[in-house]
């Protein structure tokens, strides 16, 4: 399969920089897959799973929200955080999920609603990927 240049960058580090054949990523419009020679494309992505397929096989990671950019030079993913399945701290994610749910169920804290929702999504993405990896 034809491969293309993929770069996944977070503010803390460059998470992935290399060749990939296909990625599957969650956008605000739903999951999309990107193959080589995709048209120029930009969209927002939400916290969710990322699947990277390259010559050696398939890997999964948990991403938080960011943007996806496909240009002639390759594919760039900008996200706040990114972790491979085996790097995820499951306990921390469970705690974050619990905390976010507490805030969401407490209606008096409306101003924190949006942030809690984002946090919950992140936590759920991490948990689902981590659990899959453990099986």
């Amino acid at each position, binding site marked *: 399969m034809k491969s293309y240049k993929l770069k996944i960058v977070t503010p*803390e580090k460059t998470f992935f920089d290399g060749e990939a054949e296909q990625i599957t990523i969650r956008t605000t419009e739903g999951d999309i897959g990107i193959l080589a020679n995709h048209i120029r494309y930009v969209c927002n992505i939400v916290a969710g799973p990322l699947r990277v397929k390259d010559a050696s096989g398939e890997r999964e990671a948990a991403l938080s929200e960011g*943007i996806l950019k496909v240009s002639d030079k390759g594919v760039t993913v900008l996200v706040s955080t990114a972790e491979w399945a085996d790097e995820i701290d499951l306990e921390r994610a469970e705690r974050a999920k619990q905390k976010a749910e507490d805030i969401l169920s407490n209606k008096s804290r409306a101003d924190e609603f949006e942030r809690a929702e984002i946090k919950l999504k992140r936590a759920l993405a991490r948990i689902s990927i981590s659990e899959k990896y453990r099986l």
Partner: protein
Amino acid sequence: MATANIKDVKRRIKSVESTMLITKAMELVATSKLRGAKEKAVASQPYFSTLYETMCEIQQDRGFKSIYTKKEFLKTVLVVVLAGDRGLAGGFNHNVLKLAEEKIKSLEKDGRTVIVFPIGKKAVEYFEKRKYEIYNKEYQISDNLTMSKALRLSDSIISGFRKGIYDKVELVYTTFVSTLTQNAVSLTVLPIESKDLKDKEQADTDKSKKTALTLYEPSAEEVFDGLIPRYISGLLFCSITDSYAAEQAARRTAMESASDNANEMIESLSLLYNRARQAQITQELNEIVAGQMGNN
């Protein structure tokens, strides 16, 4: 007289010595923190340059409009001031606060209302004391700034902008030029100036035609608006890291010269001490000799 003097000098030498220990330690701490801050700034570079690039490209899209780029009456300005949490950093805090104050004065002269958003303990104290209108004073940024903290900070700035509490955001901070030079600078955060973008557009019109072919989903505006919090938090993250590096560099230099001064002081005090001691010995000798002579 002479004995009292000796004691005093000795005490002073001791106190200068212990001060020097502190300044030396602070110098070393600042050096290592400076290294960390520099690494952090370098690591975040690729993320923000790509982010900025994408934003420029979206703005080139034809018929593009966003509330973050419009320029209206500009009546109220939010001035975000970044300073340190602690003193003992030479002119670091003073310089940035002075620039901020000048900026505020000139804005007020133009008939604008100014709200201050101080970040860092020193800035909060300074503007509180001078009774400026303060937007939010709960940010006393420390050394371990994370991206999520920066994101929350930018959320708070953006929400005020969207509500129309202010229609312009200025940022005053210190930029790290080199270990010896740090400059206080100011820049406009919002509305996003499309000045340099326009120049680009005119320079290569065929290129902008090409970018127009990019597919934005759901729309260029929505992608752009989604980018804004990330862009501003990125900007804040960068400038806070920058300001932090500058603070450490300023502290390092200040502590280095303090240690040097302490050394010098110890030298001259030791000289004074030795002289006093010698004078005392001479006097004692004189007394003994005089006593002997009296006996004879």
